[in-house]
């Protein structure tokens, strides 16, 4: 029986690939499978090589596979006329031509012969033969035109997929019925049926069939961006300010769509400096607030971020990484903003940074970010990337059945304020040198509260907030603010479940360490390495600041050598480990990738083998061996 389907739908930007694939993934989920999606698209509104890959099987799917086994190659409606030596190549055939390299042996191809001319695909016949591919040309466009409109060729393609895999159509039909109505629904259902019938007539040469599975409970399909937005909502965040930027726009848009319905406020403002400043203003006035951006937009938040640190204004910022520097490759994932997010803004950093490893962690860690930001009065940042942002996974519905937490954290009631220390000037001492708790947190009042007035300032300040350059006050305040980070680390260490994930035997000889969105890929690779007889253990790290020194030390002490896997060119995460621990450098090897595509499991496997067997790693990755001791 087929273990997994890895289905790729390819076409042009603006051709509806995204929504078609999302619906298909949902159908697969509904029929009992676990699913995982991966998006690839250009920074262009119309046309250009785009695909979405869905990996589905009866067992939990954590990552892309290596390659895929079913290609649905649609046309690109906005393909440009090719010319010789063209920058963008022949776009008309890209939905087919660009995807062949990764199609597994024995894979299935359905392409729209109405739009794609295989004569323009170099060496097509030969490659088909060499790889034992099964090719089914169909005039999907014609079918769509005949029974509905041209855009419905996506439906036709999905129908063909289902039929070829002998997949029960009811899930797809059900979804259409949920999403559409009237003539549009009719036409789509017709097309689906037409194609199904047409395929039934055909002869199949392939063995691939839809895997089957079942879920114990109701599932929901959602992306990292959904999960972040939901985490924020469940923590009582009711204010967001932002400015669009790929891929952060997804979280911003989701929040903007939900907030008015639940009595919250979303503001699209003039730039990201303002966006961050608004979030601070709203939080200061007593509302749980967030902002966020990507790349250059986050860079513009650098100064307000420091203001939040200095005024101890709670705020959550999200940063969705994409390939940099500068505008870089706006729709491609990378993990190269780690150092930027940790250190941008003048002065000693006093912030929290979490890098969730999957959809569920994105939800959990967004909640943790809010909790900590408000309890400890500092900025907390959720650092993720273009990959996690758009990656769909199924999660148990019950996972979300939790209590909301609108608690404002370290604040006082008017009664408490009346009891609290005030300075002779009349001001409430909102920034005490030695607050009662040993966390370094001095509770705040909210504007409008009686006798709670104080000054929040980005200058160094006395307990009541007045500007001060007194050296003793300075030391008391700065060290208290920094003490908060230690308290947070203690709190996180004391929690039942760590934000770090481990996989593999405790006593393994070798380690693989990664952070953020590459977690799933590394775990997948780990299984393969273990199957291949390697003695290896993996760690996925989410706590970037405060850093989990103890956990990381324990892990690295337990292994002889470790490989650090990250998507950037300067080994930033490895640098962070070295910085924080001041040792282990000679044990660490780096596996880097920065071509705009996330790691595939086989690349991690090959990278690992390069360490212990001295093999060449995959050509798309860069291997940086440990420093000689």
């Amino acid at each position: 029986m087929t273990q997994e389907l890895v289905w790729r739908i390819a076409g042009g930007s603006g051709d509806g690939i995204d929504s078609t694939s999302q619906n298909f993934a949902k159908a697969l989920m509904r029929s009992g499978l676990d699913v995982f999606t991966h998006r690839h698209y250009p920074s262009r509104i119309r046309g250009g090589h785009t695909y979405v890959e869905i990996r589905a099987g009866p067992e939990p799917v954590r990552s892309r596979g290596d390659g895929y086994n079913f290609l649905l190659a649609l046309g690109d409606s906005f393909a440009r006329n090719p010319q010789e030596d063209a920058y963008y190549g022949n776009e008309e055939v890209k939905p087919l031509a660009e995807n062949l390299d990764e199609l597994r042996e024995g894979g299935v191809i359905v392409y729209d012969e109405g739009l794609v001319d295989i004569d323009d695909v170099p060496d097509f016949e030969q490659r088909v033969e060499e790889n034992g591919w099964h090719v089914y040309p169909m005039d999907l466009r014609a079918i769509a035109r005949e029974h509905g409109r041209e855009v419905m060729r996506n439906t036709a393609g999905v129908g063909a997929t289902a039929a070829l895999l002998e997949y029960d159509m009811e899930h797809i039909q059900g979804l259409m019925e949920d999403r559409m109505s009237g003539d549009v629904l009719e036409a789509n259902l017709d097309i689906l049926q037409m194609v199904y019938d047409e395929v039934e007539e055909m002869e199949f040469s392939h063995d691939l069939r839809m895997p089957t599975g079942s879920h114990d409970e109701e599932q929901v399909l959602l992306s990292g961006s959904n999960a972040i937005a939901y985490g924020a909502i469940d923590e009582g965040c009711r204010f967001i300010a932002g400015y669009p930027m790929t891929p952060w726009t997804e979280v911003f848009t989701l929040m903007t769509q939900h907030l008015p319905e639940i009595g919250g406020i979303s503001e699209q403002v003039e730039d990201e400096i303002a966006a961050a400043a608004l979030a601070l203003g709203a939080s200061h006035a007593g509302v749980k607030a967030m902002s966020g951006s990507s790349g250059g937009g986050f860079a513009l938040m650098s100064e307000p971020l420091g203001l939040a640190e200095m005024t101890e204004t709670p705020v959550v910022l999200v940063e969705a990484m994409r390939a940099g520097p500068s505008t870089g490759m706006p729709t491609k994932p990378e993990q190269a903003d780690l150092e930027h997010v940790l250190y941008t803004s003048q002065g000693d950093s006093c912030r929290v940074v979490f890098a969730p490893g999957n959809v569920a962690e994105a939800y959990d860690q967004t909640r943790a970010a809010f909790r900590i930001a408000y309890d400890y009065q500092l900025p907390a940042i959720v650092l993720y990337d273009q990959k996690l942002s758009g990656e769909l996974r199924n999660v148990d519905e019950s996972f979300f059945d939790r209590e909301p937490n609108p608690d404002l954290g370290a604040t006082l009631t008017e009664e408490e304020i009346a009891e609290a220390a005030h300075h002779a000037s009349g001001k409430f001492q909102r920034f005490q040198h030695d607050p009662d708790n040993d966390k370094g947190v001095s509770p705040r009042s909210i504007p409008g509260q009686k006798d709670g007035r104080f000054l929040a300032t980005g200058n160094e300040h006395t307990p009541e907030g007045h500007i001060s350059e007194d050296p003793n006050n300075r030391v008391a305040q700065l060290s208290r603010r920094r003490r908060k980070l230690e308290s947070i680390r203690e709190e996180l260490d004391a929690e039942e479940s760590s934000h770090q994930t481990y996989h593999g035997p405790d006593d393994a000889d070798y380690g693989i360490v990664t952070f953020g969105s590459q977690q799933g890929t590394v775990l997948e690779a780990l299984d393969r390495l273990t199957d291949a007889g390697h003695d290896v253990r993996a760690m996925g790290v989410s706590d970037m600041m405060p850093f989990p020194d103890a956990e990381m030390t324990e892990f690295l002490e337990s292994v002889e050598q470790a490989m650090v896997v990250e998507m950037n060119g300067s080994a930033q995460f490895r640098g962070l480990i070295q910085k924080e621990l001041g040792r282990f450098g000679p044990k660490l090897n780096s596996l880097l990738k920065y071509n705009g595509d996330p790691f595939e499991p086989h690349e991690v496997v090959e990278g690992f083998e390069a360490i212990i067997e001295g093999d060449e790693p995959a050509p798309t990755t860069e291997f940086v061996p440990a420093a000689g001791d």
Partner: protein
Amino acid sequence: MSAFNAIGENREVEREEFTPGIEPQATWCPGCGDFAVLKSLKGAMSDLGKSPDEILLATGIGCSGKLSSYFESYGFHTIHGRSLPIARAAKLANPDLEVVAAGGDGDGYGIGGNHFMHTARENHDMTYIVFNNEIFGLTKGQTSPTSPKGHKSKTQPHGSAKDPIRPLSLALTSGASYVARTAAVNPNQAQEILTEAIEHDGFAHVDFLTQCPTWNKDAKQYVPYVDVQQNDDYDFDISDRKEAAEMMYETESALYEGKVLTGRFYHDENRHSYGSEKRSVGEMPEEPLAERYHDADYEWERSYDLLDAHK
């Protein structure tokens, strides 16, 4: 019951309540116009019966930005040029707060110019006081966006080659619904204008001429001043955009010819404030958001109830 009992007390408030019970005393230089802003703001708030705990005063960075250190209320001394986005969000979060933003001409028309334009455009219900001393005071006397052409300073040793910006006209063009200019040398007018500005339901921009004797000019150079409402030579309707625009243009030009025109330049009582616009399209709750966090009975919405679309 509100969680914010300082709000709407509507009691008699002595102007002394806005003076910190003890120091800090203002560190402004002797003769600085900034003292007059402090004084007239205290007077206006007292006239309006606002209590210190219901006011949020957000300031920028500059000598002017220190206003929040010497005016007793909730204060947010922000970063250079960013008082407006912080202030307007606080107003959205809790529309019951009396929100005032203030800063220098460098702060507001230089680095913060874009926020000025967009906040005015959105017509947030708040007052914005710009201490216009035609100079960067705190950084020691460099040319500012309102310094006259030809103005010499350490960073413009041969005299500025730039025409100054037109703050009143920019406010009007951008969409401010109340625009006035007053001067430190005329504290009575200043207090009246600030009172009106605070009462106004919309974005009120007050360009406040504050002499900087240390780097620029002293009070004498702003005298005599003319109140355009009091002087028969100036006859225009402050509710008429076109007439207001012309009067502003003249006023801005006159300043650099040594003629100090002050007064109300524009007042549009009909334009809706941003809060009410936003509420009317259903993008802002009727009750102040900040109150909700103190309402023990509020049933907080959960993502769990939004999952249908994901099934």
